[in-house]
């Protein structure tokens, strides 16, 4: 009984929606701004797609290959802005949240 991998991906998607729902509701309101910046950062996993495009084999891909490579490089650069910018700005913000110092 071979099952189409799509069904599995769908299962993963459905369960991830449940996880997302709960995990985000459990974020404390005080950290909603860092939440916005960190989700922005992680949404740049789209870089995975960009890397696949850059790595295209020019011999096998034919004329479209160069186009894909160039688009890929641009996408890599755009996603990198987000990855570095997103995680670093979040880190900077989170570093500011401090407890009262015990004296």
């Amino acid at each position, binding site marked *: 009984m071979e099952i189409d991998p799509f069904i599995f*991906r769908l299962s993963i*998607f459905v369960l*991830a929606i449940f*996880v997302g729902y709960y*995990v*985000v*509701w459990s*974020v404390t*309101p*005080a*950290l*909603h*701004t*860092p*939440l*916005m*910046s*960190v*989700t*922005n950062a*992680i*949404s*740049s*996993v*789209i*870089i*995975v797609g*960009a*890397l*696949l*495009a850059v*790595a*295209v*084999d*020019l011999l096998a*891909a034919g004329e479209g290959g160069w*186009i*894909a*490579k160039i*688009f890929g490089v*641009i*996408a890599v*650069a*755009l996603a*990198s*802005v*987000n*990855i*570095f910018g997103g995680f670093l*700005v979040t880190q*900077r*913000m*989170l*570093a*500011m*949240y*401090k*407890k*009262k*110092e015990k004296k």
Partner: protein
Amino acid sequence: MTADLAALLYLVSGVLFILALRGLSNPESSRRGNNLGMIGMAIAVGTTLAVAAPPDALTWGLIALGVAVGGTVGAITARRIAMTAMPQLVAAFHSLVGLAAVFVAAAALYAPQAFGIGEVGNIHMQSLIEMSLGVAIGAITFSGSIIAFAKLNGNMSGAPIILPARHILNIAIFGAIIALIVMLVMSHGADTWTFWAITVLAIVLGVTLIVPIGGADMPVVVSMLNSYSGWAAAGIGFTLENSALIITGALVGSSGAILSYIMCKGMNRSFISVILGGFGGEVAHAAGKTETRPVKLGSAEDAAFIMKNASSVIVVPGYGMAVAQAQHALHEMANKLKKEGVKISYAIHPVAGRMPGHMNVLLAEANVPYDEVFELDDINSQFPTADVAYVIGANDVTNPSAKTDPKSPIYGMPILDVEKAKTVLFIKRGMGSGYAGVENELFFRDNTMMLFGDAKKMTEEIVKALG
């Protein structure tokens, strides 16, 4: 690297992203969470490089170039940006994700082999559908976020721009996009012009959908686009058969939706009307009315005197504090008062400011310890026993008409009960109304003292008066 190992590693990075968000459940664990998120991203990138290894030095060079340029820009921006500019920054970053999605989809169209979804001019139907949905949502996110950025950053007037027959226009564009998607799918991806037509139309749609919305509503728009882009990422995840993308898409999708829901509920607006995008424009800015009733005016010295003799002061910051960048002065004032033996706490309304958590991040920036900062539910019962409510640049979130006047646009929104404090000090520049454009009854109460001036300057004067 085998495909199985890669799939496992993508799962690991998905789980790390979940843990990154989970860390945000309290400030203590949040820093570790952010690090886990970075590790997750590193694993996702590393796995991809291992499983689809760049074939030559040139390719490696191109990737290094892309990462170096993008990374530098990102890192510098992250370091330089002012905390008050966070809404703009998120919008700007967002447009980049949207644009990246467009380029990835385009690359897949021109070199489908690289993604294992068929050959040029003969791409799997399911992949084409997922791809064109991805590119359309990506393009809308791109242009919509740019408009949101421009409005938030002041590069463009925040006033709603109502296009003639905008609803019909939007529906027409939407229909055209659907038709083009069908054409693209029917041609098995051979008609590349349809792809670009979809992109252009979606960019236009992003603009026409967002320009009619007032500048102050932009945070909801940003969050909504965030949610859309999450679903788009999940769609591309299905095309690339990548579980890290699917999981991330669901996380980002939920996060955006929940934050817009929280904002809408806090503002007492309907979530559905926001999600459909047909809202805004009708925000009542009835600020013009000249009010003739008298108010009690005070000076910085009066305020300093009252607070010095108080035993507990609750600070209620709002959007005006952010505009004036008054958080540092505020903290200085709090420290002076603490030395006088006054107990200080901060009360944060869920939609104070213009972005969820806006006030918290500003107070954190000014080194206010987060255990002195309370949410509405936790502090509202304290106002009756407080001597002073120091309302700095906040307005709507204190307006009792939300409780009493069913005709008020903010009716039903939960409110900080500042009026129950013995004395209420209002620091603002004049009698101007807030975001919702409604008159605040409190200004005319007996126990209210108005301190007109810029929030930062006024607070600094109070600090001076405290000696």
